[in-house]
């Protein structure tokens, strides 16, 4: 077997101290092959974002190990880690500096990594995400939600990473804009042989973009499954089955029937 791009073993992350310690991640292991796309699902607070933050070094590991291309990843991360691994967040409003132009936003990673010919790279990066060069001089507030998410993707891709970590990249967008961004992510994946780790609460989005997925609950991996299993309903745990059932819209139990098994204080 070829060397995995990412190999995460027994990752644990704790927040807080003493009695107030929260085990945000507990013994999570997975691999990601080059060009592969892996989904992370689970209810909110289950640890999905923490997995991505642990990979990028934003959340300190209290246990476990991480390899990139077969080589152990040091903490703190070195600069070359971020030429291989980049991240796109849910909220394109919060993740772009409000007082920087698109040009400044895209120039920053190039400057940090001392990459020459910034202007050519920026124009090419904009073209890759379907935006013309005129967008260079706009500010984030002058862009629509979808355009901002395109800029965030352009910024992630400008260093030509091997893997992009996507945290709910389309959750804040309208359905029509979501479709455009999902198509863009697929095109870019094909064009550059990218691997993705995608966090989403929308199982249909995960099945659309990923071949494989892991299900988290209270920081633990409770199921590893495939997009195919989501589609034909052959998932293994009740937890995943309940998520699948809930994603099918609202089902009325009966015109006046009381709800079955009321879920309290969730």
């Amino acid at each position: 077997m070829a060397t995995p791009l990412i190999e995460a073993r027994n990752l644990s992350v704790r927040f807080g101290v003493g009695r107030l310690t929260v085990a945000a991640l507990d013994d999570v292991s997975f691999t990601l092959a080059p060009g592969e796309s892996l989904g992370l699902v689970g209810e909110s607070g289950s640890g999905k974002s923490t997995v991505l933050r642990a990979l990028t070094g934003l959340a300190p590991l209290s246990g476990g190990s991480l390899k990139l291309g077969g080589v152990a990843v040091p903490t703190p991360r070195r600069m070359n880690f971020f030429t291989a691994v980049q991240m796109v967040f849910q909220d394109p409003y919060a993740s772009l500096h409000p007082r920087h132009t698109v040009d400044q936003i895209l120039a920053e990673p190039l400057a940090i990594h001392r990459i020459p010919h910034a202007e050519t790279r920026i124009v090419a990066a904009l073209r890759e995400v379907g935006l013309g060069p005129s967008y260079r001089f706009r500010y984030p507030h002058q862009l629509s939600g979808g355009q901002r998410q395109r800029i965030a993707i352009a910024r992630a891709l400008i260093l030509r990473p091997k893997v992009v970590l996507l945290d709910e990249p389309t959750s804040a967008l309208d359905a029509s804009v979501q479709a455009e961004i999902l198509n863009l992510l697929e095109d870019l994946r094909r064009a550059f042989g990218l691997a993705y780790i995608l966090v989403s609460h929308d199982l249909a989005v995960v099945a659309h973009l990923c071949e494989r997925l892991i299900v988290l609950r209270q920081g633990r991996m409770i199921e590893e499954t495939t997009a195919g299993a989501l589609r034909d309903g052959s998932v293994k745990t009740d937890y995943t089955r309940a998520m699948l059932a809930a994603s099918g819209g609202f089902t009325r139990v009966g015109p006046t029937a009381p709800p079955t098994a009321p879920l309290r204080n969730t």
Partner: protein
Amino acid sequence: MTPLLEVEDLHVRFPLTEGTIEAVRGISFTLGRERLGIVGESGSGKSQTGRAILGLTARPGEVTAKRLAFDGIDLMAAPERLRRSLRGSRMTMVMQDPRYSLNPVMTVGQQIIESYRAHKRVSGRDARRAALAMLDEVRITAPDRVMALYPHELSGGMGQRVMIAMMLITGPELLIADEPTSALDVTVRGEVLRILDQLVAERGMGLILISHDLEMVASFCDRVLVMYAGKIVEELASGALDQARHPYTRGLIGCLPKLAGDSHPLPVLTRDPAWAR
């Protein structure tokens, strides 16, 4: 019989120095004691419709209508005092994120009791009893413990139940819920919808459910209005998404990734300028 709500040719405009924004452009519908959905993408005018009905349009917004009536009361002619007393007692609105609509420095109990006593002349003890009963109705376990919590101590789903409890304690006849579940997990979302559904049925209320989630709204509501650029472009019967005729509605349905059936690339929505006319 007088309908619960009559809306005819409702307009909401924002005159700004750089030009007037037409947020709602002449919509009409009536509502009985039923569940009506309003869907459309962001900026289509859903929230402004809800706010105009309640009289909560922000300055410098202007509302006009041939008729806007609640239980036969002409809201366009009603003095602000009457509208304020209707709002909160007989008609009310639940917003998307309870963390922004609940008062952060008051406990859950204080807030529910205060909103009850603002509209009902009852003793503190009776108000407290009513608040506990209402929390139980939205299926909160140990309501007396939850009454003592502050909003930041609630999970999203609990916060939303508390909001619903606060809005429904005065026994309103019309509830406008603006994206009440958009900030919630899918599993919790189903539970909150089930609570709303049951309360609406038991109390014979009218509900306007505003959301961008076409599939959810169509599975929950008796009727669905589809808004585009401030207008209603189509009305659909419950569960009849497959019978949508307007190219905008069909485009919206088409561009969603689906678990049943895998299409790459996803169809995208091509907008016809004629839709906005």
